[in-house]
């Protein structure tokens, strides 16, 4: 009897430990912002009690290169929060496990894979935007731009910085937006004129906004998510979503072909398109893949969604190599620094 009681005690004592051991550890590759990792992990682990999330987070280019390099023996179970352009590249390499998460049909049509079963599902959209340093603007008498065309004004000569599309996904996203809004010929003409005002094409997608925040230059072209952390630190930075059409990219989820944790990865993919997850994304992004979820992020214009250019991601992705080569031919060769 006493032995039985002891055994019971032991079992009770062991139970939580046993449960912890049974949790499936999912290796999740992501390009989400650092500050999003903890809340996302917490929410997912609260919803899926038997799953533990182990992040590997890096910038879009690095994480994509890693995923592709690891192709023969994937180490990631699932990707949660990576540019759809990267996922389309991986789809073309047959790296994604087709699976339609529960409820994924409810997502906006242009924010989920058009394959059946789906290869990826969208989370939210992030857009290219202008990071505008108001202090530098005052010092140098720069007017506040509201459209991309405003940046062609000669007063911005040497004041604009954008990511090199050949180095940075953000740079390519911006260029794709211009092509979407103006047509390809119009976009090349625009970029040729903008080139006159560019101080530097950076290799990093986040540098233009970070350096504009530090007053290194007045105008940085980057994407919208950057600003929050910077403003919290006291940077005099304003994020402007131009009204003449902005390119956007999706953060998306996809299961890796060959994952050893298929079942758990599927459940996380289900969670990633669920309403609670969308509400979580809505704390950071203004346009969510699931219609009807109200984002709680502030400082976005009411007509935000209308400013996005319609984008056929697959069509852009297939043109990518040619567009980038042409960009390099036009602007990279004559990229001696201007002082």
């Amino acid at each position, binding site marked *: 009897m006493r032995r039985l009681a002891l055994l019971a005690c032991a079992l009770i004592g062991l139970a939580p430990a046993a449960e912890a051991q049974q949790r499936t550890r999912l290796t999740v590759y992501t390009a989400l912002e*650092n*500050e999003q990792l903890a809340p996302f992990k917490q929410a997912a682990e609260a919803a899926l009690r038997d799953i533990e999330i182990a992040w*590997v987070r890096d910038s879009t280019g*690095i994480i994509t290169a890693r995923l592709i390099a690891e192709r023969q023996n994937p180490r990631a179970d699932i990707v949660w929060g990576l540019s759809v352009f990267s996922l389309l590249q991986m789809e073309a390499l047959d790296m994604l496990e087709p699976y339609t998460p529960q409820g994924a049909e409810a997502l906006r049509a242009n924010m989920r894979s058009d394959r059946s079963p789906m290869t990826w599902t969208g989370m939210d959209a992030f857009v290219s935007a202008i990071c505008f340093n108001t202090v530098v603007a005052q010092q140098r008498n720069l007017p506040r731009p509201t459209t991309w065309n405003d940046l062609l004004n000669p007063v911005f000569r040497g004041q604009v910085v954008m990511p090199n599309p050949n*180095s940075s996904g953000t740079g390519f996203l911006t260029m794709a937006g211009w092509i979407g809004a103006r047509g390809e010929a119009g976009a090349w003409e625009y970029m040729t004129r903008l080139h006159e005002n560019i101080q530097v094409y950076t290799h990093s997608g986040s540098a233009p906004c970070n350096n504009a925040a530090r*007053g290194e*230059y007045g105008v940085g072209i980057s994407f919208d998510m950057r600003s929050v952390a910077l403003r919290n630190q006291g940077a005099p930075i304003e994020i402007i979503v131009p009204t003449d059409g902005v390119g956007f990219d999706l953060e998306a989820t996809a299961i890796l072909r060959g994952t050893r944790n298929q079942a758990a990865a599927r459940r996380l993919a289900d969670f990633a398109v669920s309403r609670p997850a969308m509400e979580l994304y809505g704390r950071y992004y203004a346009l969510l893949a699931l219609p009807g979820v109200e984002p709680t992020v502030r400082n976005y214009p009411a007509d935000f969604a209308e400013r996005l250019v319609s984008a056929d991601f697959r069509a852009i992705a297939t043109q990518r190599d040619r567009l*980038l080569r042409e960009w390099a031919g036009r602007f990279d060769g004559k990229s001696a*620094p201007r002082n």
Partner: protein
Amino acid sequence: MSEAVLAGQPSRPRRSLDQRIMRWGLWLALAFLLAFLALPLATLLLRAFETPEGGFAGIANFRTYVTTPALLAAAWNSVWTAALTAAIVVPLAFIYAYALTRACIPAKPLFRAVMMLPLLAPSLLPALALIYLFGNQGMLRWLLMGGSIYGPSGIVAAQVFYCFPSAALILAVALSTADARLYEAAAALRATRLRIFWTVTLPGARYGLVSAFVVVFTLVVTDFGIPKVIGGQFPVLATDVYKQVVGLQDFNMGAVVGVVLLIPAVLAFLLDRWASRQRTATMSGRAVPLRPAPRAVRDRPLLAVCILVAATLVGIVGVAVWGSLIRFWPYNLTLTLENYDFTRFDTAGWDSVWLSVRMAAMAAAVGTVIVFIVAYVLDRGSQHGPLPGIGRFAAAVPLAVPGLVLGLAYVLFFNHPANPLGFLYGTLAILVLNSVVHFYTVGHLAAVTAIRQLDPEFESVGASMRVPVWVTFGRVTVPMCLPAILEIAIYLFVNTMTTVSAVIFLYGPDTKPASVAMVHMDEAGQASAAAAMGVVILGITVTAKLAQLLLGALLGRATQAWRR
């Protein structure tokens, strides 16, 4: 077993035990270099000859690359910035090292420690400092007289800072041993000081000078961190690799540029061979170590140069430390310690720091043993056949391989399903081995320089007294080279603490190093937090360096009496 085999083959000349040990050592050295350098690199670089689908492409990729307009510009930019940097750094480092080794100036250990500062900090830290100093809002912007830090001038300035320790380290080792008899003889022949310098000092340091030039040149050509952060869009070869691999995920074209970048390695190797053919051991068994005597005419200007260089190095790092204590450059300069609460910026918080310390300690422990033994075996073993040459070439290669190429090569090789070493992938061990290989060359050169200053007759005497080679190695070579060995260990430790470019492809969910966390903070716009992480890393590496100096002083008393 092998005894029996050898005994059963009487026709084959019986080798002495020593020779056989050196032979096995050579094979082990080559096996290490093969498994952790040659095969991974080959896995990646062979992609230069493949189509994206994996078919054979011949030289089509090279043809595409050569017809890309920016290539020649990038190659030329790489060459001239590297040459200019080397032309500035090597004489400066020579003067500094000369002052440390051949003059009587006070506070030598301090200058020796300060010399290493640029290596002790992750390169992002001085980059931030340069922006605070010379950026468009910089405190010393007027010094540029209207120029911009973003471009070639910024690259050369940052590279001079970054390469100085490597050059000074090699030259200090090269100058630290000299035979006083040569100087006495020269003086007896009434040679002028200039002539002595020209005919005794410089030839004695020739090997070090060539090594230093080659190391600096190659470091600049392969580094993409500095051109990426403050080079603006000034195209160089290393940023071309970055563009192809990280921007376009085009491993084939990335491999093409990687192959192009190996050209400096081949040239460096040829130069090294040339220099080693000219070599003579400066410390023969009968040598009398040179002890510099005080001479104000020489010492005072040298001291002034040392102070100037040291002050610049400390100043740049000081600005970075200050940058870690402010809230937000340049708009909110109130001081705070909040930036050191890393959990606010990264979920791993301080854990990544401790992980980095473990990783760096392992790299130093494992790496130093490997580097020194391999260098010894390659230099003192039989020079018969092509193997020693192949080994020496392999040891020179890592310097010419950009970290990002090495990192990707490791992914492709160790993650391959058929690789028996695949169990290493995703562990701390692979990060350690990758770092050892990544920073192999400078350690190897330092080891070779130290070993070459010992007369081979030590081994001959040992052999004639029937002392096995490993006893001579353990009782003579290692103690005599202890300063160099310590130097190599600390070099590996600090570089592993600060490296980003290769490990960024290799870390796993539980093995994210502090240097990578620092880059992530900077990318997220948290420059002050990134600076704080950089300062913590610097604090650890400085501590390690000071420990080395202390240990070096204690050991020096025990093992370096022969130099005095």
